[in-house]
């Protein structure tokens, strides 16, 4: 199946959105050179343009966490932090890996921590276009990531 035929590739909450896949830290060796042939399992909206994100553990970026529900992307709220392995794992000191191939080559982001962000602040910082995909009654989940070289 081509990427274009998978609806999750077409649904975009934000122009800055990066679709990818969450891998467990114990599955790092299973990350292939090429993108998996199934739909992305995660997405992030980084606070800054991707080109400005520098690799290396000394550079941390903040990103909004998106999860797929009914084939659409939604901002993860604090109500769902225990439902998903990558966010629940953050409480167990597991550093899950967000991997994407959108630039044509593999990029790996390491999840360092998660934080809560008020919905109004998230809309202000990550763009008004997320307004329809964020819960207004719960804090949103913000990811602290580093980019692997």
């Amino acid at each position, binding site marked *: 199946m081509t990427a274009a035929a998978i609806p999750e590739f077409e649904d975009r909450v934000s122009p800055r959105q990066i679709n990818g*896949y*969450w*891998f*467990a830290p*114990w*599955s790092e060796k*299973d*990350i292939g050179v090429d993108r*998996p*042939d*199934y*739909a992305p*399992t*995660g997405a992030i909206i980084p606070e800054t343009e991707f080109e400005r994100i520098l690799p290396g553990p000394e550079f941390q970026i*903040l990103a909004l966490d998106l*999860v*797929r*529900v*009914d*084939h659409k992307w939604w901002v993860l*709220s*604090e*109500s*769902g*932090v*225990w*439902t*998903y*392995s*990558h966010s*629940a*794992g953050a*409480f*167990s000191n*597991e550093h*899950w890996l967000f*991997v994407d191939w959108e630039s044509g080559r593999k990029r790996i982001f390491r999840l360092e921590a*998660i*934080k*809560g*962000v*008020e919905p109004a*602040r998230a809309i202000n910082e990550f763009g008004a276009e997320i307004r329809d995909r964020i819960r207004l009654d719960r*804090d949103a*989940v*913000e990811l602290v990531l580093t980019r692997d070289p």
Partner: protein
Amino acid sequence: MHGVSGRLRTTWLGMPPLVQEYHRWCERQAADHRGVTLGLHHGITAWSAQFLASEVERFADERRPLWCTAALANLAELVFCADAGSLNWATPAGADPQFTRDIEVLKTARNVCFHPAFNRTAPGNTPHILQLLDELKAADAETARVAQEIERGWWSAFGRAEITLFVLNRLDSAGRAYAAILRGQQRAFLSQDQTDALSRYRLRRA
């Protein structure tokens, strides 16, 4: 077992006082439904929350994911059907949509485990395992790969550890939320401190 044993320790199943409280609550519900006095009837349910939680841990340590998943599904039915005292799962008014969704997933996982002969694929009569696919595909890369195997016809892939972790997460999430819901209904079986420990996410605000 692919992170299950480690994750277990951070869930409410890994907190003995809280397992004990869920255990007592299930027994009290059973006694009320049967109209008997709890103190006079030990072993009031065929399965107990405490026993199932210990079995989950044992199967995880022994790397037996299918049985671990089955024990989780059984525990979920016990906890979330105890209030009704029947086959009906908890649907509290005003519950968070995430709780409702977690319950639906757990119910479907229970059906996969305990209705193993269901193979008909008529419209509107989709086998339970196929009803889980969308949720599995949206979980993480490894779980999505298992979903792909199931979709291609290898239903035995349900017995993989990735599925156990998936079900464990849902049970953890729903169990934390349920404690807060019961507290809100003034039917709490946990102290406020215990409820807070379970239901507060302790997300430091950015």
